[in-house]
């Protein structure tokens, strides 16, 4: 009998060995399709897709797509830097050969070199940053959720140099026009105007419920999309004239369940696109909201939208169940599907590199 026991002990020991022998040391979350070799960006037509990942999962990634070669590389930040991008990559902004990626739950901004995707600087100390917007060559603003301020970043030494108190615990997208920053205030349903020279708040303009995105057209009118909250009010698209600081047009969505977002404008600054379950297109001279969709979602979950500055192609991300890789569909400006490819989890923004 004791021989039998010996056999069992040896058997179990072997078994444990089988379970312990592992190909290579892997620590923490692993991504199967992410890039393992160094990537060189192309000269032109590169698109960076910012993939939020899931809150707490630390699986935010950057996808590199080349629209000429139709090549896709996943997880390029991790490959170039040997550490993950962070937790929830909210947005990105391109300026001066650099890409600023706002990593919301890691409370940081990664400044990345456009030529090799290595990190130039990690700006830390934010509370819960959302968007980055340079206001001049040496200064940028960063909007925040859960803190009543806009952070001011010194772009010379890449540190936070100060802040602007806002009264809003959720500031979202921003744009700059004529030394004034226009900031979406999600919590107070306002547009905050900030003087970018002295960083003083000039004015607060009342808007619809939850202004989430804004663009400026060729006539220097600012269009602001208000999603209406969680069935709080009807959504609105507002046309604001910054020169006379007045709302010139308010277009109200007919259905309380509509929750439009991702307002973008093409390179000509004439055609706007937004997501309202489907993709809609609207000319800046239109006096009413489009009644039919430009691209129907066909069961997909449209999560973000981009328009290519030269090809005019529309990029739209399907986030599916939000816990898997998004599929990006590229539509020609005749509404025909031109190409599809996979990106990372919750593709939230398209950055078209010059």
């Amino acid at each position, binding site marked *: 009998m004791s021989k039998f026991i010996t056999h069992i002990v040896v058997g179990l020991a072997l078994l444990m060995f089988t379970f312990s022998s592992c190909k290579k040391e892997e620590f923490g979350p692993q991504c199967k399709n992410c890039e393992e070799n160094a990537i060189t960006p192309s000269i032109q037509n590169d698109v960076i897709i910012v993939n939020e990942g899931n809150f707490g999962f630390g699986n935010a990634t950057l996808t590199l797509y080349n629209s000429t070669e139709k090549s896709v590389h996943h997880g390029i930040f991790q490959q170039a830097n040997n550490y993950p991008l962070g937790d929830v990559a909210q947005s990105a902004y391109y300026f001066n050969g650099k890409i600023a990626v706002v990593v919301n739950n890691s409370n940081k901004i990664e400044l990345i070199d456009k030529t090799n995707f290595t990190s130039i600087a990690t700006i830390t100390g934010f509370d819960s940053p959302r968007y980055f917007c340079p206001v001049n060559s040496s200064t940028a603003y960063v909007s925040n959720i859960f803190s009543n301020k806009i952070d001011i970043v010194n772009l010379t030494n890449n540190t936070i140099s100060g802040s602007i108190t806002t009264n809003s615990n959720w500031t979202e997208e921003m744009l700059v026009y004529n030394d004034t920053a226009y900031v979406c205030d999600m919590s107070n349903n306002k547009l905050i105007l900030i003087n970018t020279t002295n960083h003083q708040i000039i004015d607060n303009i009342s808007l619809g419920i939850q202004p989430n995105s804004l663009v400026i057209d060729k006539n220097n009118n600012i269009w602001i999309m208000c999603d209406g909250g969680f069935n709080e009010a009807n959504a609105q698209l507002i046309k604001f004239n910054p020169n006379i600081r007045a709302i010139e047009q308010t277009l109200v969505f007919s259905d309380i369940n509509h929750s439009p977002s991702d307002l973008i404008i093409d390179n000509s600054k004439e055609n706007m696109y937004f997501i309202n379950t489907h993709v809609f297109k609207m000319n800046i001279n239109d006096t009413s909201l489009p009644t039919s969709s430009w691209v129907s979602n066909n069961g997909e979950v449209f999560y973000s939208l981009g328009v290519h500055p030269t090809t005019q192609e529309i990029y739209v991300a399907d986030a599916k169940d*939000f816990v898997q890789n998004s599929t990006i569909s590229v539509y020609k400006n005749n509404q025909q599907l031109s190409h599809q490819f996979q990106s990372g989890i919750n593709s939230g923004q398209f950055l078209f590199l010059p």
Partner: protein
Amino acid sequence: MKLISVIFTLFFVQTTFGQLLNDTIKFEPFVIEEFAVSATYKTTNLDAVATKSVENLAQLLQENSTVFIKSYGSGSLASVSFRGTGAGHTRVLWNGVSLNSPMNGQIDFSLYPTPFFDKVELHYGASGLIDGNGALGGSVNLQNSLPNFNDSAKSVKLNYNYSIGSFNKQIHSGKVAYLGTKKWFYETRILHSEAENDLVYYNFAKKENPEEKLQNAALKQYGFQQAIYKKFKNQTVGVRFWYFNSDRNLPSTMLVDKNDETQQDESFRLLVNTTGFKNKFSYKISAALIHDNLIYTNKLIDVNSKNNSLLMDNHVDVNYFINDKITFLNKVNVRHEQAIADGYNNEHKRFNNSWLTGFSGNFKRLNWTVFNRMTVVDDFFKPIAPSISLGYQLPKLESVTLKAAAGINHNYPTFNDLYWTSGGNPNLKPEEAKMSEAGLKYQKAFGKTTITTENTFFFAHVSNWILWQPSAGNIWSPTNLKKVENKGFESTLTIKYKLNKVDLSIRGNYAYTISKNINLPKNTDDALYKQLIYVPQHQFNSNIKLTYKNTALSYGYYYTGLRYISTDNNWYLPANYISNISLSQAIKLKTTTFNLRFQVNNLFNQTYQSIAWRPMPLRNYMLTLALNL
């Protein structure tokens, strides 16, 4: 699959020789079975010995069963799931009373230190219906033992434990039991524990993987339990009160630098019950009041959130022994749930009542149980939720029992699912599971060796699975979205061997679980037919214990296979394999026993994560002194 073949080989070789051991489930009238789950279902029993060597329920299950424990780290939130279901599909009962929060339907297993209960029984799949609705995966039953009132042994028993370990951990626990004259019984249990949990880890989320110390992870727990029982001729009446308080800081993931979150939990649990029998009836009547407070704070974003819930849970269980072959089962549960939270517009209340009727019995070598649970929750009336199980002892091979079970159970949406502002969806339907299992149990003694093995295949469908996803205005909202198929295999093997003064015991548990989406709103979705996230396909644990006189050496090995963390299975957490070793020495004086135990956890210093980017402790130590009077 290698393991399965090993076990089967062992199994089939051994069935061919040796003496027979009886494992008949004997019918014993007028003995009240506290758990009352027929042995024809798959269950796991963890006795006092198992509960003594671990700190809390999460650890106990991690080391002794193949249910999956998702732990945020040492002392942090731990949830348990059975057979590929979710954490909200596991019921936890304390002496028959379901403790699951009506707010999120879950239990934090790190808040149940082992000194507060004596035995744990796990009910898998269809057997969980006996414990109430909601157990779509299974249920965990914590039980406090009562003394044998006829015992003439010592009337006062005292037990004190002191543990000191790595990360400034200190645990005091004690128990005094007094069996008085006239069959009165008093028992007091106390616990105080604290830890800094400032464990050191390598931060793989940062440049050059610096060595860091976990910040903001300290915890403090204390509580007591008081019981008074009185035995009458054919009846026992008792009251038990349990207070528990936990105050902890919540550490962040490796990807977040700044963090200032805390969570305080406070529970008041009062249970009054009586058990007895009269003629051919046996009964158990209980009334319980469970009050939970949870305060979560996040100073960085100025959040201070209060959550209170109150449960009133009443049971009337009556069994009627029709004859010595058949018992009629009848259980009525009147449960009132209420909760108020900062996330609700107002206080929410509901009744969650159910009535179970059925029969259990035996016919020659066949044991059987069949019952139905009728449930009324708010507007939902589910008249049919049946469960059936059969156990058949082979006529020629009495050491082998064939078992099979099947059943249906429903899980009702929680208050958070229904009413959370914003996002709650009042139109949710109950989740439904259809479960089945089949297997065999084998138990045999060969001279000085005893072998027990149980092998079970399971298959289940869970439909209307509630899933939270972003909806309008970026608000997360739940819907009855998923349909999941769970199937797999569970195997346990225990070998006990005795030679002179040496006792050797070897135990192994293995579970193979396939849990996948079988129906999604869109069929192009890459999550279709993929393994669900945080469900390991392979799980294995084993323990080898060698006892010589008063010295015991124990080695435990725990393997958790890779877990996917994205539904398309593109992301995963690598497998981990952890070893613990302990040496204990008992010193017996006249009426006093000292026991000194030294334990090394994570012996081979493995870096691993149970949840993405949450560091788990590297090699760490614990010294325990126990005193029994």
